[in-house]
Every structure is written in structure tokens, then in C-alpha cells.
């Protein structure tokens, strides 16, 4: 059972307090999008062995969505950050680079 710190209320939450929301930083494809872009938005998700960015909601707490950067193999958490961003903030990317020098980066 993971522990993630909610960046909104600063509580280290047990996983049972949280609701998972899958991959973070997925761009919404609207009515003008082509079939491929819409499929990408609706169905296609990364499933990396290693560094991953995820959406979580502090459902049994403040109710806010946030993002977590973590390693799916070692369970290391590189940091959590506001969901109200289009890409991971620099301090998170730096934290990952420090721990995973070979990481290919956020793409």
C-alpha cells in the first residue's frame, strides 16, 4: 500500500485514502480531433517499467487531484505535484534525473 503526499493539504496519505486516475498529462482530444488523436486520448496509455507519471485524487481527504512521479519497479516516489499543469515541474524532473541518470526524459 503506497504512501503519497497530497500537495494540496500536505498529508502523507495511505493508498486507501486515494483514488487512482491513471496516466498523467494526457491531452484531451475534442470534437475536431481525428480518429487517431481521439483513440490516443481515450484508450492508449503508457505502462512503463520504471519512471511513470500518474494522476491520483485525495478522495477520502481534501478531494483534490494531484500528480505523482514514481518508479513502478522500486516504488520510489520522486515527488507529487499539482494536477494543474501540462507537464512535470522542473524540480520533479531534476529529482528523477538525479536518481535515474539513464532516464530518457518526459515525452
Amino acid at each position, binding site marked *: 500500500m503506497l504512501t503519497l503526499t497530497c500537495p494540496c493539504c500536505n498529508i502523507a496519505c495511505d*493508498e486507501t485514502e486515494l483514488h487512482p*486516475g491513471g496516466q498523467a498529462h494526457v491531452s484531451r*482530444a*475534442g470534437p475536431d480531433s481525428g480518429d487517431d488523436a*481521439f483513440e490516443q486520448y481515450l484508450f492508449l496509455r503508457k505502462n512503463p517499467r520504471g519512471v511513470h507519471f500518474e494522476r491520483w*485524487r485525495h*478522495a477520502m481527504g481534501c478531494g*483534490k487531484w494531484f500528480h505523482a512521479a514514481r518508479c513502478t519497479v*522500486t516504488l520510489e516516489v520522486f515527488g507529487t505535484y499539482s494536477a*494543474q499543469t501540462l507537464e512535470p515541474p522542473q524540480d520533479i524532473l531534476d529529482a528523477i534525473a538525479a536518481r535515474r541518470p539513464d532516464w530518457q526524459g518526459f515525452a
Partner: protein
Amino acid sequence: MSTRLATGGRLIDRGAPRRFTFNGKALRGFQGDTLASALLAGDQMLVGRSFKYHRPRGIVASGAEEPNALVNLGLSDRFEPNQRVTTTELFEGLTATSQNHWPSLDFDIGAINTHLSRFLPAGFYYKMFIHPRSFWKHVYEPVIRKSAGLGQAPSERDADRYEHLHARFDLVVVGGGIAGLQAARIAAEGGQSILLMEQTAHWGGRAPVDGDEIDGQPAQAWIDATIAALEAMPNVTLRLRCMGAGVYDHGYLLAYERLADHQPQADMPRHRLWRIRAGRIVTATGAIERPLSFAGNDIPGVMLASAVRDFIVNYAVSPGDRVVVVTNNDDAYRTALAVKRAGLDVPCIIDARPAGGGALMEQARQQGIRVETGKGIAAVQGGKRVTGITLCQQAGEGAVIDSIDCDVVAMSGGWSPVVHLWSHCGGKLTWDDPRACFIPDPNRPPTGADGSAFVASAGAASGALTAAEALADAARAIDPTKSASAAQAAPSDEAPLMPVWIMPHGAGAKLRAKMWLDFQNDVKVSDVQLAAQEGYESVEHAKRYTTLGMATDQGKLSNINGLAVLSGALAAPIPQVGTTTFRPPYTPISMGAIAGEARGEIFQPLRRSPMHQWHAENHAHWEPVGHWRRPYCYRRPGESIEGAVSREVNATRDSLGLLDASTLGKILVKGPDAGRFVDMMYTNMMSNLAPGKCRYGLMCSENGFLMDDGVVARIDDDTWLCHTTTGGAEHVHAHMEEFLQTEWWDWKVYTANLTEQYAQIAVVGPKARAVLERLGGMDLSKDSLPFMHWTEGTLAGLPVRVFRISFSGELSFEIAVPAGHGRALWDRLLEAGAEFNVTPYGTEALHIMRAEKGFIMIGDETDGTVIPQDLNLNWAISKKKDDFIGKRAHQRSHMQDPTRWKLVGLETLDGSVLPDGAYATASGTNANGQKHTQGRVTSTYHSPTLGHGIAMGLVLNGPDRMGEVLDFPRTDGTIVQARITDPVFFDKDGAKQNV
């Protein structure tokens, strides 16, 4: 025979006798006994029967690894099956019965299987019972189930209570042997918060039994002093009878404390489940001795050497007068010496190593014990009890050299560190060749949130088997710099172990078929070899094919032996064969402990509407709707459910009905961008709804499927009140919040789920307006409050919002009041409505009346694959809006497919009620020989208003096929025919609601 010795027994109190029964036989033991030691003291070696062959089974071990001695414990509401006698502490009045035998333990008809064992090899059930297919369910399984299985499931409600405890510690040390004590003692000086737990009732583990000396004093003295020191430290919590059950992500640890198993009359919870977040975990979980695989090693009287020693030293119980020791290592010599010290006979120590052992062997020889090196046991003699053994060369094929009379065989095949907790959360193992065991690989530990190791092993759990090694290893696990100053034991001079997986090495098929690996499940060396021969090369496959390690001990005793036999059969090294996966819990924990306090009324909190009490007092027949309970109908004394429903529908259509609609979701959406937001949430346009008006809206998920529906009311310029279905309130609110927070976070919108803040009552029927006028306070005439409008005011002196909306086709007002006034308004309406035969109605009448009007119901007409267009709801899908949730998905080719089944009404030709969910068949069959289908029933009722069955369904090209008749097969094979109709069965023009 086994008996109680006249003196000794470090754990028993001879001044406190305890009476108990086994299979109805009255026996006596002492305070401090386990049920195992007390049974042995009463010469009860035979305690059960094995699973497959019903072979007689005796006590093998003295701890949690015991595979055989499982009993039913307790009676009636305290009955519990599959309890290990070795971990059950004796108490006054204990009752135990043996399992898996018929008609009796001593004479078991199932034991005939042992003579058929040649015909019951590994995989027998898979091979034998696969054909014909249909026989499995109806013939084979019921018969096999009756003769298999261990204890019976309890039939009564558990009389005990259980609890969960949440805790945080900087360090948790699992295991209270000398390694655990050493680790806790060193760590405690640093001031961190520490929990030290031990699964048995005593601190110190095996050290006092083994006669170790620590810091120059007997182990027990050091243990007592260390515990006293730890008890005095405020940062240390000590728990006996508390087992580390499982290690999970990020330092989460489950521990299982047995508070009252040994004192069932105590007024306290029986078990406590500790839910711990640990900064660090040290597993000082010890090691488990391995059996040796020789022919007849399952006969009662063959025991682990360490267990024989435990029973003598701890409980002054002699398992037998003549104990043959058979070993491949030095430790078992301690057992021979302990037997000798107790005044019993050791006719022979059989050491498989050609050169024998070290200093302990010399001691044994000095005691006059015959030591045979390079030898093995060819076979054990005896049936329900060992009577002797035959001796052979370990290197040979089992030719008998000598035979020796004995009643106990104490065996030791070496020790396996308990690596379970290390492995639960990803810790990896490495094979230790000299000691022939898997040990935790410190370079591949379980890692926590910071990426570093959060579990370390200490002592025998690391493979450090002697006291000296264990103490040094435990110090290293906490702080390598402190190992010099920490407690120490003198190194012992032990000769190396020699791996022995089969005894004798060249044993033929006949002997191998009598060498047991898994005692409970009857898996033998020959079975594992057969599995390998048949291609089950993966250890996980071999396990499932043979059931090795799938018994209640989960392979604690024999898995390594089985792996070694498999590796021998595959000619692959043991580390390459690997281990099966270690899964929590370490030993079985009670279902009660897992449930904790969550049982009975508080298993799941019930949501109650403000009128709940009235419903309960007025014959409500309840229906669970989410966490709510809603009245399905109000069943008057003597009335049938169908009768009550019909009465409620008729009374409402004729005069006046009341529905408690408080459970409907009510979500307030407010802010400068609220209009823009509700336009995205709903398929239809909501931003242009005028204040004071209501509009029915549909909500889709992003993949286009209809998710929820309800009436939206515009409260003021920047406020919309969105009604949802009862079951949908929470997830619709979450859906709104998700998009607000993660997609349009710059929009100025606030949402609040007000569902429980308001009671809501639907006042329905031709007399609805009349009864509200009786209450007084508002003008609710047709002109003042037209259909699909709402207004605010007071009714009967209560502050209300009145929505003129209808889900029944009747003149209808839904009245919302603050929840605290809900019951008052309900009572006023009942009083004022008396003259109109006011009739509260339940959810079934609600459903019937909406179906008569052709209104859809989320969850009936929708199932997560239905889009609004399927339900002919195109009128509620805006064509003007650029975007809404689900709009893009509606453009996908499958959503545009003209052959999607569409909503129609269905009327049976004979007036009967169509079966719910029935399919309409079409001509032809599919590849499986099943009839093609062309539609299905989504809602179906008997209509009291029309006097016949009505239904709605989704049908291929349905709206274009009015009047066609479809065939709906029932489950009994008969067919009911129904005609396609308009889904609006009643008052198509809306004459009744628009008055």
C-alpha cells in the same frame, strides 16, 4: 509411548494443572503447555489424517510450520477448524477434535487410498476427471468434495470480537529471539520508536533450548535482562503472541496479535490486526528445520530433531523412550544430548556425512551414543507409530545393514531461514551453497518511497544459524559500528552440513514412493519427479501439478526439499529452479481479524433519508439503492408485494401519491463560468436555461455512453442545481470535479454535493395541487408555476423549493426542504392528504409509472454501452454546442452505425410480463450454434393502469418496425411473443401532467 517426564520443563507450571478433551477423551496438561505438548504427554501421537491418502499423521514440529497436527478447536459459536496444536496454548476446558477422517481417527475408511496410491499419482485428478466434461460438476466434484477437505466451516456466528489498530513506528523488529532482542536493544538506544514482536508466548526463541551462552551467562539470563531493559525504555513497545503477517509497499506491515486465544473467557478482543507504517523493518524471523526424505518419514513418531528437543526441554515431554537421530548437520546432535540428559535412550545417531560432525559428535560419543557416519535410513518400520528403522549406506541404494528398534526418529535436514517477510514486497534471495539454503540478498532488498531498503534481515533469518553468528548479524543489521560493543556468544565449532535431498542417495522407485515431502497434501519425492518427467519444469507449475506446498503450512517445512528434488530431476542447479512466490500472510490469520470491527450494523454504514423512520414504521419493504435503503413498496398486513405495488400505482393515478425522493442527487454548480461548465457536462444546452426554469438533461462519459440523467434547475444568474440519479450523485460530482480540476482549472466554477442537505418529496397525482393548497403559503396554480418551472416560498410554514416536474406523467410537484424539516413536511402532507386517500409509494411504483410513460431509467435502459441516440433522445443532444463531454465519441463510426439497437415498447400478445433481460431471436445461428439475436428487454413490468404486461427494449431497426411481432425465448425453452410498439404506453399527449 510418549509421556511426561518427572522433572524439568522450563515453560510449564506443574502447580497449575489444566483439563482438556481431545475427541471427547479427558486429558490433563499444565499451564504453559501447548496443545501439542499436552497431547504428547497424554500419549496422543496420532492426531489426524493426511489429505489425499488419509495416512495416519502425528506431530512433526513444535511451531508454526506444523503440517499435520490440525484440529477443530472449540464448540458452537467458538468453533474453529484447522488450528495447529503446536501454536495453541493450553487453557482450562479446551476442547479439540481431529479432522479429515471417517468414521474415526483410529480407523479411517479413506485410508484405503494409501493402498491405491500407485493409481493416484500427481495430476491424477486432472487426468482422470476431465471427461466427460459435464460429469465434473454433477458427479465427480460433489463426491470428491465430500471425501476431501480438512476441518468443517463454522456454522454459527462468531461469538468473539476483533479489532484493528493503526500505528506508526520508526522501526519494527519482527521476531523476539536473541537476534531480534539484540537488534531492538541496539536500535532503542538511538531513541527511535520501536515495536518488537514475537509470535510465541515467550521471548528468546531457541537459544535457551539449545543451551547457548551470551556474554558469558546462560542465554535465559541475558534474555531476561534485555527484556527488562527494553521494558524500561519509553520508546519501545513489546508484544508477545504477535506475528508479522505481511510486508507491503512503503513500509506497510500487518501484524496479527492473538490477545485472547489462550484465555477465551477474558473480556477483550480475541485478535488484533496491527496496521503499521514502519520506517524500517528488521526481520529476525529465525529458521525452520527441514525434514529428510527417507522411506516412511511420515509415520507418526518421525519428528524434527529440534521439535523433539523442544518438547523435552520446554515441556518435559518425552516423545518416546528410544530416539534415533538422523541428520546431515551438527545441530541434531544437540537433540541426542538433550534426550540423553532427560534419561532416555539414543540407540543411534545416523549421520549422512562420511566424516560425521565436529565437537558435538565427540560429546555424543563420550556419552556412549553409537554414531554411524556416512549412513542413512533405508526405511522406517511401523504403521500408526514408529517401531524401528533399518540402516543403510547413504551413498548406496538402500541395502539394509542393520535394523534398530526405536519409537521416535528425530530428523534434521538442515535449516531454512524464514525469508517470507523479506520476500513479500520484492526482496530477492540468493542461494547459500555451504549452508544449502536461500538467504536474503542484501544487494536486492525491498525498497521504500525514498528508493532505499526498508527491510533488513537479522540472525538465523539471514542464514546466521549459530548464536554467535546470529548476534553479530543482528548488530550489523542495525549499526555495523556497534557490533563490537554488542552482546556476543562464543563461536561454536561445527562441521559443515552436507546437502541430503534423498536418503539413501541411490534409492529406487519403491523407496522414493514412500518418501514424503508435503505431509499434509501427500506429495512424495516420486510425485515431484513424475511432474518433472511430464514437463512441469517451472517450479510454479510443478507446485500446482503436485500440490507441493499448497497445504495450510504453505510449504514451510518441505518446499526447499521439493525444489531440490525438482532440480535433481531436471539436472539444473537449485538457484536456477528458484522458489515459488512467498505471499502474505506468513501463517493463516483469522477472518475475524481481517474484518476487525466491520461486521453487523457497522459493516457498511447505512444512509437514511429524513423520513426513514416513518417508512420503517409503516411496513416498508426495503430495497438497497447504493448505500441507501429505499422503500420498494409499503406492504400492509396481509398484502402481497405485487398487491401493494398495484395499490400504490392506482391510488397515485386516481388521486394522490407521495414519494420520498430525498435520495436523488443534488449538486450545486456555481460561479461566473458555471453556464459554460454545465454546457460541457450535459449533452443539451443548459447555459440558456432561464432562472426559474427546469430542463431534463443527459450526461455522457467521454467515450459517449449515457452515464446519468436528471432535471437541472437554473437558480440564478450564476447558479445551476443539477439533480442526478440516487446511485449517481457521488460519481457525477467526482466527474465534475475531475474535469474542473484537471482540464478546465482556470474556469471559475464551484461545485457542492448537497444531496443530504435537502429532503425531497414528490407530490403526485390529480389531487397534488389540491393538497398543497391545503398546506397553504404559495400560489401553485398552472399560470403561476407552469410545467418545468420551479419557485421558492413556504408551505405549511416550512421554507421550500417547489419544482414542477413529473416522472410519472401525473400532475406532480417535487418539494425540497432543508433535511431537518423533511419529516415535518411529510407528516403535514399525510394529514392534509387524508381526504384524498394519500398513498406513499415506493420505488417499484415509481418504476412502473415511468415505464408506462416511456421514460428511461439509468441502469435499466443503459448499461454502459448505450448512447442517448439508441434511446431516441437525439432531441436532448445539442447540435449548436461546439463541445460537450461525449460529443467527439458520438462521431465514431460504431456510434454512427445505423444498425445499433434502438429503444421501442414491447407488448406481449398474451398480456403476460416479458422476462427481464430476455433476447429476441432472429433467424439463423452463430458459429457456436446459438440463435442470432435482434433485441433485448431492458425494463418489464405488469402495468396496473393498463392491466397487462408492458416492456421496453432495444431492437434492431426497432422504431421502423412498429407492429412487428418478435419471439422471446424464456429460460425454460418456451417462447413468448411480443409486439413492437411506441414506448409511451399511457397518456401520450401529456393531458394528465399539464393541468
